């Protein structure tokens, strides 16, 4: 009895010791156990996927990631006040391409340059498109955010309508405009073109894209605003005509959601858009054009160089948080952009591509056949057509009002852009 009891005791001790060792081994893996990272995320397609994939990071490292999904305006307001007030409410922030200037100038976020050099091999930087690395977080000599969601500006069009009319996919703006007019038939509720018309960032951003493609530019060679240049006035005139003659009547009210919806519902024949929305056209639960849609590179004005608009989001670390939080936040960024996790992120429908290897990945290609178009766009990407300068929010607002004023017939292009230029000049 005594020997049995002694044996049991030894067994129990051995068991406890092994459990303790096993526990410490797990503990060693879970380096960030007990840390909670709060992430402020734009309410784009990737947001829900971020929230869904975050628990895997917890499994691997122990750190919990709480994803706070916000609309564009709230994201900018809440994160900026958090940065300015030094309240450290958010550890990680998704950063729009155009905010880099103000982030860098005000030192809101951690400069990742040294960390990126240190962890270059782990990050596999060569596999990331240089344009994305630059545009989605680089400013001056700083890297204020790390890219995680690259968007390509592409042309989505109705292949069936183009085929029926004997038209080829447009490669120039002139061809696109001509096709838009030709395919418009209000009696069949089909319109050749759709774009954002709503006052504010929606119409400003879409017009800036068309403006660049038609040879216009927001800033002059001296880096100062040149909103009322001849080229800009001409492109706004074409844009207005497209809205009047070839767009669904309600398009002047559309923001991104309304524009995408009209295309998925099959009432628009062409639409320039961010690649992030493309997976939705092939989803029968929300799209009526699953077998009719095609995606190609965005058209350019005849004779203009092959440069395509890119946009998207970087992930930034709040400079006002504790060092331990910063380390965990950097670990999360590295984990998210690592090739296997980022592939999984996109397989789950984030529509946020980043790496060259993703463009040739058989699983991703099978699911998203338009990846070569995105690859081509990223290869020749232009992240500067919306000027990434600290004055951008005000310029965007001025253009968002001026262009909308023109679209509703309240002002002519020259008068509206003259007024916007006068106000923009005061900002410099």
């Amino acid at each position, binding site marked *: 009895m005594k020997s049995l009891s002694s044996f049991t005791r030894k067994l129990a001790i051995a068991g406890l010791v092994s459990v303790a060792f096993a526990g410490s081994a797990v503990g060693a893996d879970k380096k960030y156990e007990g840390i909670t990272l709060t992430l402020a995320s734009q309410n784009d397609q990737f947001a829900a996927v971020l929230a869904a994939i975050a628990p895997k990071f917890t499994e691997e490292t122990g750190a919990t990631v709480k994803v706070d999904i916000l609309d564009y*305006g709230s994201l*900018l*307001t809440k994160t*900026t*006040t958090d940065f*300015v007030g030094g309240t450290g409410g958010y550890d990680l922030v998704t950063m729009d391409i155009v905010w880099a200037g*103000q982030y860098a*100038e*005000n030192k809101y976020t951690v400069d990742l340059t040294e960390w990126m050099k240190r962890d270059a091999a782990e990050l596999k930087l060569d596999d990331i498109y240089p344009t994305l690395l630059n545009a989605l977080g680089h400013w001056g000599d700083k890297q204020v955010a790390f890219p995680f969601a690259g968007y390509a500006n592409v042309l989505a069009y109705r292949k069936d309508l183009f085929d029926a009319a004997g038209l080829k996919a447009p490669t120039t703006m002139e061809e696109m405009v001509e096709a838009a007019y030709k395919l418009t038939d209000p009696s069949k509720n089909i319109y050749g073109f759709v774009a954002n018309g*709503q*006052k*504010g960032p929606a119409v400003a951003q879409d017009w800036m894209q068309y403006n660049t493609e038609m040879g216009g530019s927001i800033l002059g060679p001296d880096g100062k605003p040149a909103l009322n240049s001849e080229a800009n006035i001409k492109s706004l005139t074409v844009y207005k005509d497209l809205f009047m003659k070839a767009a*669904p*009547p*309600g*398009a*002047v*009210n559309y923001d991104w959601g*309304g524009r995408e*919806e*009209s295309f998925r519902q099959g009432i628009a024949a062409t639409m320039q858009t961010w690649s992030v929305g493309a997976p939705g056209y092939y989803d029968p639960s929300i799209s009526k054009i699953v077998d009719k849609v095609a995606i190609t590179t965005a058209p350019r004005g005849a004779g203009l160089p092959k440069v395509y608009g890119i946009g998207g989001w970087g992930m930034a670390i709040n400079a006002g948080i504790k060092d331990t939080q910063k380390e965990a936040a950097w670990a999360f960024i590295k984990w998210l952009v690592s090739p296997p996790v980022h592939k999984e992120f996109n397989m789950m429908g984030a529509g946020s591509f980043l790496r060259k290897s993703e463009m040739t990945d058989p699983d991703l290609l099978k699911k998203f056949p338009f990846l070569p178009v995105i690859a081509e766009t990223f290869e020749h990407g232009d992240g500067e057509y919306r000027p990434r300068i*600290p004055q951008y*929010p*005000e310029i965007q*607002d001025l253009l968002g*009002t*001026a262009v*909308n*004023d023109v*679209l*509703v017939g*309240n*002002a002519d292009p020259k008068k509206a852009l003259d*007024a916007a230029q006068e106000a923009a000049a005061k900002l410099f």
Partner: protein
Amino acid sequence: MTLSLTSALRPFPALSVSYVERRRLFFILMTLPAVIYVLVIGVWPLAQGIWFSLYEYNLLKPARTHFVGLGNYIDLLSDTVTRGAFVNTVIFTVGAVTVELLLGFAIALALWRDDRFNRICLALILIPVTITPLVVGLIFRALLLADYGLVGYYLAEFGLSDPRGLFANPSSALATLIFVDIWEWTPLVALILLAGLKALPGDILEASEVDGATALQRLRIIVIPLMLPSILLALTLRTIDAFRIFDSVYVTTGGGPGNATNTLMLHAVKQGLEFFNIGRASAISNLTLICIAVIAAGFILLIRKADRKANGR
């Protein structure tokens, strides 16, 4: 000895003060929390707002902060966008409050008689007031969109509105917003005026009826003059509220098309929370505050004068 004993037995010399003084001290102590609350929540932010408005102060450009005196105010008064926002706000306020007052008074008269039908009607018409203006804006936006809106589609189809929708046309957008405000707030005006009607002295009304006064005469000579305090209350509340209109405009038009529905508060919010231009946003808010104070003071003087004339008070 007795005297010194009594003095020694007084534990708190302060309590030796008279009853009147103690009563005064008690009242001061009781009102102190409220005074502190008002100072912290009301006066301090107001003072800070006035102070900020004298600076060029942008949260995104902290290094460029400097004193500009009345520079922000001068800029605003010479700025066409601010002037447009002021005109829009005045049109909106006058249009909405006038209709709300007339319609609210008519509804109050219709529901004056205290019976079950009227009580049910009153409960039903109060539903819009319970919905937050932001949601009301979203509901009307969804209803009036030309492509997908349940009402907007048919209005456009039958040629009753611009094919692009009521919110897309500069000449109909502000009128539509006024309509939305009327829909939401007329019941509140009706409720305030109904309370005023129910408080009217019944004997005077009965006497006038016996004396053969017509309904219109009773309304003009007795009801309206006696109702002046209620009318003043409804008018002041709604004017102040309408002058600060923001939520429903923000979600329906965002101030557009162009600047056709831009209002002072929308302009201030944009300057403050979108561009973080605190100095300019404070100046707009202060201008709005001055306008509201002048309007409210004007109403009070006007109604007091009318009340004195009608009722000798």
